[in-house]
C-alpha cells in the first residue's frame, strides 16, 4: 500500500470535509453568475483585528470605487490569525486572496512555501523611497543574519510588502524632561519622576509576545541576544542576563503595579491618563490612544524617539511590520498583486495616513506638513534609517518566543531570578531548536 505523508492525509481529510460542508453553497450558487477569472468581483483579505487593520478597512472602499473590486476584510485576533493562516496554508486553501502577516511569521510561511513570490510572479521591484529594510523583512530566505538550515542555498524572493510600518520606539513626557539618550538616563529619570500614582517606567510584562516585544530592544541594546549568527542560544550569557536584570529589577522598582499583567493597551492607558512617565511604544498605540484627544490627557506632552542606547553603545529598535502577502492557494493572485501596488502608490498612502495608517514611504514620514498630526513620524523615519533589528528569522520563532516570553514574565513577576529565568528559557529553546535540526 502506498504510504501517504501526514500533510497529504490532513489535506485529503480537509478537502473531503470541505466538499461536504460546501455542498449546500455550491448548490445554492448554481444558476447565479460567476465573475471572470481575469478580474474577480471580490478579493478576500485575512487581517488582524485592531489598530493595524483599521486604516485598511477605511481605504478599501476607494479601491472599489476605482476598480469595481470589493475588498472583503475578514478579521481575526492576533493569535487566531496566525493559527488560521497556518492551517489554511497546510491545506493549500483558497479562502484568502491576501493575508496580513506580522513580520516574525515570515520564516514560518517562507519555510512552508505558503506564499506567491511578488517579484518573479508579479513584477515587484524595489522603490528607493521605501527603506531597504522594509523589503528585506518581506524577503525569504532572509538577506542577512542567520538562515535556517533547511533554507540555506534557496533563491531569495520577495513574499510580502509592509503596509503597517511598525517599528518599536520610545516615548517619554517631554513636558517634564529632555530626551533620554541611554538606558541609564531612562533609569535615572524613572527614579526622579516616580511618585505616588505616577510610575517612572511602564513595563509591558504580560506573558509571551507582549513581554518578549517589550524586552528585546533592551536585550539587544545591552549586547545580549537570543541567538548568535550560528543559532547558538545566547540568553544565558552575562550580557543577556544583565539586560534582563536591568528591566526586571532596576526599572521594575519604578514600574506600575501588576507589570506582569500589563499589555500594550494598559501601558498606553497609563500614559494617556497622565500616570506614567515613559515606556517603549508601537506607533499604533500613539495614534489610537496617547495622541487621541478624545481619550488622552497628555496630547502634545509626549515625545517619541528611537530606542535609547544601551551598554553596547547602540539603541536597537525592533521591527513589527505588518505585511501583505498572497497565499499560494489564491486563484486571484494577479488582482491581489494589483491591490498591493495600489496601496503603495504615494497618493493612496497619503490617504491611508489620513485614515490613521502607518506609512513606509520616506517622503511621507519626512513630510513636515504631516508632522503635527503625526508626532512620531520623524522618530519612525530615524528608526528605519538606523536599521532596526528583526526577531530571529526562524520557523521556530513562535516556540522560541513562548519559552522566552514565559520566562521573562516569571522574572517580571519576581517569581524567578533573571538568571534562573534565562537559564530555563535557554534550556527550553535549545531543546526546541535541536528537535528542529538547528545547531544548538
Amino acid at each position: 500500500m502506498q504510504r501517504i505523508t501526514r500533510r497529504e492525509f490532513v489535506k485529503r481529510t480537509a478537502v473531503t470535509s470541505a466538499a461536504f460542508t460546501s455542498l449546500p453553497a455550491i448548490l445554492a450558487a448554481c444558476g447565479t453568475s460567476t465573475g471572470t477569472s481575469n478580474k474577480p468581483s471580490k478579493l478576500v483579505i485575512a487581517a488582524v483585528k485592531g489598530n493595524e487593520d483599521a486604516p485598511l478597512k477605511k481605504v478599501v472602499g476607494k479601491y472599489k470605487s476605482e476598480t469595481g473590486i470589493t475588498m472583503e476584510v475578514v478579521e481575526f485576533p492576533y493569535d487566531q490569525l496566525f493559527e488560521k493562516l497556518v492551517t489554511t496554508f497546510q491545506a493549500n486553501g483558497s479562502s484568502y486572496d491576501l493575508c496580513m502577516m506580522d513580520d516574525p511569521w515570515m520564516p514560518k510561511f517562507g519555510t512552508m512555501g505558503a506564499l506567491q513570490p511578488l517579484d518573479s510572479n508579479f513584477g515587484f521591484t524595489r522603490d528607493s523611497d521605501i527603506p531597504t529594510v522594509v523589503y528585506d523583512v518581506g524577503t525569504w530566505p532572509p538577506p542577512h543574519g542567520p538562515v535556517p538550515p533547511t533554507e540555506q542555498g534557496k533563491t531569495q524572493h520577495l513574499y510580502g510588502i509592509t503596509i503597517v510600518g511598525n517599528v518599536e520606539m520610545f516615548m517619554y513626557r517631554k513636558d517634564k524632561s529632555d530626551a533620554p539618550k541611554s538606558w541609564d538616563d531612562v533609569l535615572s529619570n524613572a527614579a526622579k519622576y516616580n511618585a505616588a500614582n505616577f510610575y517612572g517606567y511602564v513595563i509591558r510584562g504580560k506573558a509571551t509576545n507582549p513581554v518578549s516585544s517589550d524586552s528585546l530592544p533592551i536585550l539587544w541594546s545591552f549586547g545580549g541576544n537570543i541567538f548568535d549568527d550560528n543559532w547558538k542560544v545566547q540568553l544565558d550569557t552575562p550580557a543577556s542576563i544583565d539586560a534582563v536584570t536591568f528591566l526586571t529589577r532596576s526599572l521594575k522598582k519604578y514600574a506600575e503595579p501588576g507589570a506582569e499583567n500589563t499589555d500594550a493597551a494598559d501601558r498606553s492607558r497609563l500614559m494617556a491618563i497622565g500616570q506614567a512617565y515613559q515606556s517603549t511604544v508601537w506607533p499604533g498605540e500613539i495614534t489610537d490612544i496617547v495622541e487621541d484627544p478624545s481619550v488622552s490627557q497628555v496630547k502634545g506632552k509626549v515625545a517619541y524617539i528611537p530606542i535609547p542606547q544601551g551598554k553596547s553603545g547602540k539603541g536597537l529598535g525592533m521591527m513589527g511590520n505588518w505585511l501583505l502577502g498572497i497565499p499560494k492557494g489564491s486563484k486571484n493572485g494577479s488582482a491581489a498583486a494589483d491591490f498591493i501596488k495600489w496601496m503603495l502608490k504615494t497618493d493612496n498612502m497619503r490617504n491611508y495616513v489620513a485614515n490613521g495608517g502607518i506609512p513606509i514611504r520616506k517622503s511621507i514620514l519626512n513630510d513636515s506638513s504631516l508632522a503635527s498630526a503625526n508626532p512620531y513620524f520623524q522618530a519612525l523615519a530615524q528608526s528605519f534609517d538606523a536599521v532596526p533589528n528583526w526577531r530571529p528569522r526562524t520557523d521556530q520563532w513562535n516556540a522560541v518566543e513562548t519559552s522566552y516570553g514565559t520566562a521573562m514574565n516569571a522574572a517580571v513577576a519576581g517569581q524567578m531570578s533573571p538568571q534562573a529565568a534565562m537559564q530555563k528559557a535557554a534550556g527550553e529553546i535549545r531543546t526546541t531548536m535541536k528537535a528542529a535540526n538547528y545547531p544548538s
Partner: protein
Amino acid sequence: MSRLVAEIPAPTGTEPVRAGRRRRGRQERLAYMILLPALGTVFVIVTIPFVIAVFQSISSDDGTLIGLSNYGRALSNPLLYEALRATGFYALIVLPTEILLGLAFALLVHRTVRRPGLRATLYVLAVLPLVVPPVAVGVVARLIYAPGYGVLNYLLQSAGITHSEIQWLGVPILAMGSVATVDIWQWTPFVYLVLFAGLQTVPRESVEAAQVDGATWWTQFIYIELHYLWPLFLLILFFRTADVLRVFDHVFILTGGGPGTTTQLLSLYMYRIEFKFFDAGQAAALAVLVLVSISILYALVTRALPLERA
C-alpha cells in the same frame, strides 16, 4: 403469473411471528434512519478528528510511522508535569468548593423556600451563569481583577479594607485563586441544580417519619438525603473533573497561564504545544492520553453508579 403464485408459501401457524419480525425490522430501519444524521454528525466532528489525532500521535511530520515516540516525548517533557501540578491544584480548589457550595445552596432552598414562584426564580438565576459563554466570563473577570482599573481593588480601597492594589493576577497563589473563583462562580449553579433535583426525589414520608422521631437537620441529611444524593455526587464529580481538564477560555484571558507557568493548566499546555510549538505529534499524543484517561475515569464512575440496580 401462475409461477409467482406457486412460489408464495402456504400460510402456516408462524404467520403472526413473521409479521411481527417484519414490523420490528421496519421499525429498526426507521430508528436507524432517524439516528443517521446524528451518527453522521458525530462521525464527522468526533470520529474523524480522533482518527486523525491517533494517526498524528504515532507518526512524524513527514507521515512516517514512529510508534510511541511522540508519547515518550510528551511524557518526558517536564513542562507537562508543571501543567499537571497546576491542573491538580486547580481541581483541588474548585471541585470541593463547588460541591460544598452547591450542596449548601440546594439544601437551603429545598428546606426553606416553599413558594413555587421563588423557586422558579432561583432556578432561572442558577441557569444564567451556565449559559454565559466562557470567553465573556473571562473578559468580565478581567475587568474585576485587572491591575490598575480592576473593580475589586477599587471596591476594597473605597471601603478602606486595603490601602494599596492587590495583584490578583500577578502573585502566583492569588492568580490561581482568581482563575478558580471564576470557575466556582460559573459552575456552582450546575452542582446546585443537580443536587436540588436529587433532593426532590427523597420520599416525603421518610423525612416526616424521621422528623417525628426527632431527627435534626444534620441527621436527616446524613441518614436519609445523602443516600439519594450519592450517585449524583459521583456524576457531578465525573462531569466537573472532565471539565477541569478542558478549562481554557477564562484562564487564557485572565492570565495567559502566568505568572510564569503558575496557571498553565493542561489545556493551555496542549494549546501551547500545538499552536505555539506546532508540534502536532506531541500535541496529538497528549490529546489521546487525556481522552483515554477520561474514558477510564468514566468507566470507573459508571461502575460505581448504582443506576442499573433493580
